[in-house]
């Protein structure tokens, strides 16, 4: 396990160096929030040949619907823990192939389609501890833009400058490894023991 401090835009080479279990901290201007609807919109724009309002290549895309507050005309991120990533599984592989983001952040992990795309494109999936919105907000220093605000605060595309945002644990890498799959396998080996506690046969 290694620790890395990366600055956006992140290159394919840098992303391919990362392995599951590594911890990274991210700084830089190419940090965006995107949930279901922002993914969907980005894909629609790609299909129509339109350009999204941000540069996704080399970026960090965070599955989060933040709590933000406008003070003195400027938006601040108040609390921003990750949302459940598996909902974005239907979009993420195509999103990665089209836009070449290098780090996807969320919670709970993603599935085979995303894992294959991470390998193909050279990107990683990182887990940030679910519910830790106050801790996350510390690393999300400045909101530079609030795009697609018609989608509402949680679903909009927030454009953020990050400073040492983390710790982010790499749980899916570009070498086909997933700590989430490992954990699933580990739990399935415990099934008989768990059933015996409640008096059920497998």
């Amino acid at each position, binding site marked *: 396990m290694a620790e890395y401090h990366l600055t956006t835009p992140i290159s394919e080479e840098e992303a391919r160096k990362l392995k599951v279990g590594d911890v990274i901290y991210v700084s830089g201007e190419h940090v965006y929030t995107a949930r279901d609807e922002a993914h969907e919109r980005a894909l629609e724009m790609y299909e129509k040949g339109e350009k999204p309002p941000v540069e996704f290549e080399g970026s960090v895309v965070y599955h*989060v*619907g*933040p*709590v933000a*507050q406008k003070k003195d005309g400027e938006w601040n991120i*108040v*609390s*921003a*823990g990750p*949302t*459940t990533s*598996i909902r974005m599984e239907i979009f993420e592989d195509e999103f990665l192939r089209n836009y070449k983001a290098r780090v996807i952040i969320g*919670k*709970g*992990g993603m599935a085979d389609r995303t894992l294959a795309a991470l390998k193909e494109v050279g990107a990683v999936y990182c*887990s940030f*501890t*679910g*519910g*830790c*919105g*106050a*801790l*996350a*907000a*510390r690393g999300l220093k400045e909101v530079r833009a609030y795009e697609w605000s018609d989608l*509402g*605060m*949680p679903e909009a595309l927030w454009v953020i400058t990050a400073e040492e945002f983390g*710790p982010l*644990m790499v*749980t899916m890498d570009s070498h086909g490894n997933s*700590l*989430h799959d490992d*954990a*699933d396998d*580990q*739990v*399935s080996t*415990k*099934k008989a*023991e*768990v*059933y015996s*506690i*409640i*008096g*059920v046969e497998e």
Partner: protein
Amino acid sequence: MKDPQQVITDATVRLLTKAATELPDEVETALREAYERETNENAKTQLSAILKNLEIASTGVPMCQDTGIMIFYLKAGYDFPYLSEVEDALAKATRKATENVPLRPNAVNPIVGGNSGDNTGEKIPWLNWELVPGDSLEITAFPKGGGSENVSIVGMLKPGVGLAGVKKLVVDNAMDYMGKACSPNIIGVGIGGGADISLKIAKKQLLRPLNQRHPEPEVAEIEEELIEALNATGIGPMGLGGKTTVLDVKVDYAMRHPASLPVGVAVQCWAARRSTATISKDLKVEYITHPLEGK
């Protein structure tokens, strides 16, 4: 003379603020104990982030960005004189807390789309009323996060599967969603009644203080067995392995129809936010879960 609607509104704003920023003491203690108990490195990392997060949150920042959909549980004394003020006061308090804390606007119209922007709208906040003897009103603010709500289920079991079948449903559900509901979780189980009743009972269990067992020994035994079984899965905090998958399991029941065995399973993330106060008929407010300083 105090304005009753103002008193109820102000008290509820404080309840929502405290719920969003400070866990009830016993939940935080349970998380600290879990950190001490864990030996798995991933589990330690996750729990340490959670504890650090709670420290930052206690300065007045919502601990989780998902500040929930607004649900209130009300115990209304038959003789509390201001019942007609309550519904409006709770909606007003919700709007005010959304702006001040701030809370994330989470009320979305499922038919025509769109976010109301202030956490209110058709049937939201949702009010669970219970009429009780007395002349006071107890309000519990229970902002419920979406991630854990998404893995709540109701199972319509065949009565023949018995209690073993009930326990299997709870365990299988947890092994299915793994850490996606932000474990360590608190799980509420409602057995019997009907489809809706079982889920209502299940969700209400999430209000019971941790480590308090059901008064009936047969039910308490089911709770204990489920705690042991779920923690033996090795799912651990955030599903990345470890000993602590649940902080607690709470079970309750209602009589059932001979043909049905409904089981509701409600899931709560580690951010088990709730805050309770009572308001007397002369409009004195007492905060139960988050007492005022110096009390």
